[in-house]
């Protein structure tokens, strides 16, 4: 799975996710990636989210929407919202979440062995990584 979240200079957020699913899936199986609220969500009043991992879990728990809800309605910092979804909602090893809020705060966190990722912002923060 691949995904991206962004904040533009106009203050708008967006999210996108794309995947081949999981090896050996039944033909016709749909995971979280194409489902808004499960693997993808964006709301200028909250945050933009893209997930990767065990899709059925992200669907069951509406992870992308839940992350946004935690930021928008529960006033959680985006990093806390993402970490709570990983620690308190999903199971260890389920995957990862990236998110950016309307102030440009971002989180790229996971509870699996790795998550290849990249980040950049107007302040000059920039990098790519695979492991911790």
């Amino acid at each position: 799975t691949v995904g991206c979240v962004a904040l533009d200079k106009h203050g708008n957020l967006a999210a996108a996710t794309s995947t081949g699913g999981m090896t050996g899936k039944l033909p016709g199986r749909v995971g979280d990636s194409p489902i808004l609220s499960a693997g993808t969500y964006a709301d200028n009043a909250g945050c933009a989210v893209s997930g990767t991992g065990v899709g059925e879990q992200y669907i069951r728990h509406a992870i992308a929407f839940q992350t946004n809800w935690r930021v928008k309605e529960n006033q959680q910092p985006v990093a806390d919202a993402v970490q709570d979804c990983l620690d308190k909602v999903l199971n260890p090893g389920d995957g990862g979440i990236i998110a950016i809020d309307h102030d440009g705060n971002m989180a790229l966190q996971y509870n699996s062995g790795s998550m290849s990722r990249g980040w950049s912002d107007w302040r000059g923060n920039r990098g790519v990584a695979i492991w911790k």
Partner: protein
Amino acid sequence: SRWAIALHGGAGFASPDMAPEKVEQFRVALEKALAAGEKVLQSGGTAVDAVQQTVMVLEDAPYFNAGRGAVFNAEAFHQLDASIMDGGNLDGGGVSAVKHVRNPIRAARLVMEKTPHVLLTADDADQFAKTNGLEMVEQGYFYDASSWAEFQQWSEKKNGVAPKAPSYPLNESAAVAEPTDTNFTCG
């Protein structure tokens, strides 16, 4: 003037002892995708354009489980899913189980912008993409030796036998592709 972007290339179980040249391939691909998104945002483009352009780069790279390089399903072919969402108006679109659109994220955006719906699926989603002028490819385009090796291992473990070939014809370049590191399984 604030802008920011983050991307992922999948969560998995990358072995820390993965060959350095393979690690470098991943890093180069991630850098290329990040640069595509940065270019859009730095020039004042929209977040929707930035996430689409970034994901297209990742779909076109064979190292990730999306687009080219996608995993195999139980019947040894590829079915791809994608979605996109605009935080400014909560518009969104997605496609699932497509087999022939080269960049599923482009099809997802078409669903968002050209229909009143949020999700189209399977052959009808492919047909919708084709009708709207998106590039269509044969299944062999998505083949990658690493994904195939992973599927063979999965099939051997589950069924006791590893299939000899995908369920679609392989073109010559795909058939001779060198297997890549199978220790990196993207979610």
